[in-house]
Every structure is written in structure tokens, then in C-alpha cells.
């Protein structure tokens, strides 16, 4: 069958909202775009464990520690679901990892900021996971089957992440003056980077139009960012905390909150490797990979030995 006809059939499926599955024909560009998008997402989950892992041993109670451990373990799981989905497109796991380790592949810019206080665990759960959920829920309907199915699992699990974060913020904001200050300081530092998580403005976003056409993106960056702001402002009010944006106000006419200008220079600077923790994060990933090499080899050797014994 010629490519034009195959492409026409593919587009008809997309238009009818029929899912594309691994062995179905798909345009090369669709495949490549998905590999980039899914692997970036997987990398973000894996690197996203690092800022939080720092606080597991410092959690203020056993209850908080158990939750932090479970959350970080979930993130490892989410990374693995997504790497598996990505591999159905014909890439090898090791190639994806080596792109992460060499710095060639991107991950969410948010994880290049440091976690300075316990309140950051609250702010990350509330804002960063909140923003991630905004992004991910529509992807449960993504046109590529394995990706959509992985996102369904991720979204089911992510809800606890946001709630435990908000509970931390709630406890701190109802606590002593020092605790309240800590919560406000965390909000001040995480607010703008969280808004940047949705990516460049629609005018600047080079992949949006094609990705919307293909059903691997269901809302534009600006639409999702607006949804997030609208959902989050009342949550901040409930905490009695102030969002660090003097231009933030309700716009009756639009039925949305207006908000101030985002510092895009900062965003592009962090994306291109110059954020406060980019080097630290990549070093930690590379160290884990290198120091785990003997375990991977030993497991292979043991599997071979067992197989030989069984055959004998």
C-alpha cells in the first residue's frame, strides 16, 4: 500500500478518535514526536524523584515519611510505565537512558530548582503535582494507546501526591509564625516555576498545532496554564497564603484570573542547562547508573547460571 493511502487511513482514525496501537502504521513524524514527548515525560518522573528524596530522611513524622517514600516510589513507577510505552514505538530503554545521562534529552525544567525547606515538599505536591495533573488528565485520551493507558494509571496515583502536599501546606499555614513563613516562602519560590511547567506561550510553542492535530495534546499550553491558575488561587486563599503576583486579579468579563508576565528568559535559561540544579541532577543520575552497573551485570550472570543449570 502506498504511503499516501496509509497516511489518509491514519488521519481518518485520528479524526474518528480511534486509538493508534503499536503495530499500526503511523507517520514517521508522529512516531518521533511521541518518542520525544513520552521519553521527556518519563525522564521528568525519574529526575523528579531527586528533589524529594532529599527530604525522606528529614520528614517531621513517621506519617509524613511514609507518604514521602510512597510518593517517590510512585514516581519511579510512573517513569517505568512511560518508558515501557515509549519502547512500544521501537526504541531501546538503554538508548533513552543514555540520552538522559548525556544531557541530550530534556526533562521538566521544574526539577532543576532546589528544595530548601520541608515546606517545599508541601509546595511541590500542591503546585508541581497539581500542574502535572492538569497536563496529564487530558493525555488519558491521547491518540496513542499505550501512552493513554500509562497516563490513566499515572493520573489515578497522582491525586494522592497533590493532596498530601496540600495537607503539608495546610498544617504549616495553621502552625506557628515560623511555620507559616516557611509555607509562604515555599509558595513564593515555586509559584512561577510551576506556571512555566506548561511550556512556552502558544505563540512560541512550535509543536502545539501538529500535536493537537494528532491528538497527543488536547489543550494548548496557555489554556492549561489558565486552568491551573483558576484552580489554584482559591486553594491559596484557603491556606491564607499570598500568591507572589501583584497583577493577579479576577477578570469578571473573561471569567478567569488575569496574571502577571512570566520571566521566559529564566525558563529558557533553565531548559538550556543553566538552572540552579541542572548539573547536580544529571550528576546524580549518572552516578546512580554507573554505580548500578555491577548489579545489572550480576543479575545477568546469575540468570545465565540458573538457565544453564536448568538445562543440564
Amino acid at each position, binding site marked *: 500500500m502506498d504511503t499516501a493511502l496509509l497516511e489518509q487511513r491514519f488521519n481518518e482514525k485520528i479524526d474518528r478518535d480511534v486509538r493508534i496501537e503499536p*503495530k499500526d502504521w503511523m507517520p514517521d513524524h508522529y512516531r518521533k514526536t511521541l518518542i520525544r514527548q513520552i521519553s521527556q515525560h518519563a525522564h521528568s518522573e525519574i529526575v523528579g524523584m531527586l528533589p524529594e528524596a532529599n527530604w525522606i530522611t528529614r520528614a517531621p513524622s513517621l506519617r509524613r515519611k511514609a507518604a514521602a517514600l510512597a510518593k517517590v516510589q510512585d514516581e519511579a*513507577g510512573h517513569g517505568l510505565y512511560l518508558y515501557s510505552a515509549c519502547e512500544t514505538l521501537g526504541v531501546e530503554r538503554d538508548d533513552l537512558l543514555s540520552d538522559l545521562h548525556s544531557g541530550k534529552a530534556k526533562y521538566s525544567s521544574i526539577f532543576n530548582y532546589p528544595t530548601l525547606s520541608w515546606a517545599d515538599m508541601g509546595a511541590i505536591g500542591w503546585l508541581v503535582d497539581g500542574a502535572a495533573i492538569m497536563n496529564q488528565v487530558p493525555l488519558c485520551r491521547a491518540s496513542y494507546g499505550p501512552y493513554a*493507558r500509562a497516563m490513566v494509571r499515572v493520573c489515578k496515583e497522582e491525586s494522592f501526591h497533590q493532596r498530601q502536599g496540600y495537607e503539608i501546606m495546610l498544617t504549616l499555614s495553621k502552625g506557628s509564625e515560623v511555620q507559616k513563613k516557611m509555607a509562604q516562602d515555599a509558595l513564593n519560590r515555586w509559584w512561577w516555576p510551576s506556571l512555566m511547567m506548561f511550556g512556552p506561550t502558544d505563540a512560541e510553542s512550535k509543536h502545539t498545532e501538529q500535536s493537537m492535530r494528532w491528538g497527543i495534546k488536547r489543550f494548548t499550553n496557555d489554556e492549561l496554564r489558565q486552568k491551573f491558575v483558576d484552580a489554584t488561587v482559591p486553594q491559596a486563599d484557603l491556606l491564607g497564603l499570598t500568591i507572589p503576583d501583584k497583577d493577579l486579579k479576577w477578570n469578571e468579563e473573561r471569567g478567569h484570573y488575569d496574571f502577571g508576565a512570566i520571566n521566559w528568559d529564566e525558563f529558557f535559561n533553565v531548559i538550556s542547562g543553566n538552572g540552579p540544579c541542572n548539573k547536580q541532577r544529571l550528576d546524580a543520575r549518572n552516578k546512580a547508573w554507573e554505580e548500578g552497573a555491577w548489579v545489572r*551485570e550480576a*543479575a545477568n550472570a546469575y*540468570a545465565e547460571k540458573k538457565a544453564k543449570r536448568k538445562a543440564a
Partner: protein
Amino acid sequence: MNKNWPLWEVFIRSKAGLNHKHVGSLHAADAEMAIQNARDVYTRRNEGVSIWVVESKHITASDPEDADQMYEPAKDKVYRHPTFYNLPDELKHM
């Protein structure tokens, strides 16, 4: 030596009485490790009571290109369904 761990497909029975259902895949050095990893990756919230793992290379799948010839013949055989047969209303429970 740096051989990648092979890929395994994971199937989970969510509770006794239901069939195993494909949930995803993972890498592991051998079957035993695949089961252990599947437990950690796919059943953190009581999703299952039983796990199957099969090395992905052992799965033979039909070709989507053949879908027409494979499944089309069943479409015009409505007489395989109970509603095809005209029976009087007086007849209850059949």
C-alpha cells in the same frame, strides 16, 4: 559484557474469578525477577492477586494489515446472534 535485560509483558489477575489482563511491560534479567519487579511496578495498590510474565519475544501477534480479512467475515453473520430469530411475544424467558 553489557547485555540489556530482556523485556517482559506483564499480566495481572485483579481478583479471583477474573482473567489475567495485560497491564504493561518491564525489563528483568529472568522470570523470577520479572515477577518481583511486576509486583513493585504494577501492584502497589492492591491491583492484583496473581501475576503472569512472558518474555515479549515469545508473543506472536496478528498483523493489523490483515484486520479486514480476519474479522470482516464475522460481520455479515447476524444469524449467530439470538436477536436474529423471530419468536412470539407470548414466549417468555428464552
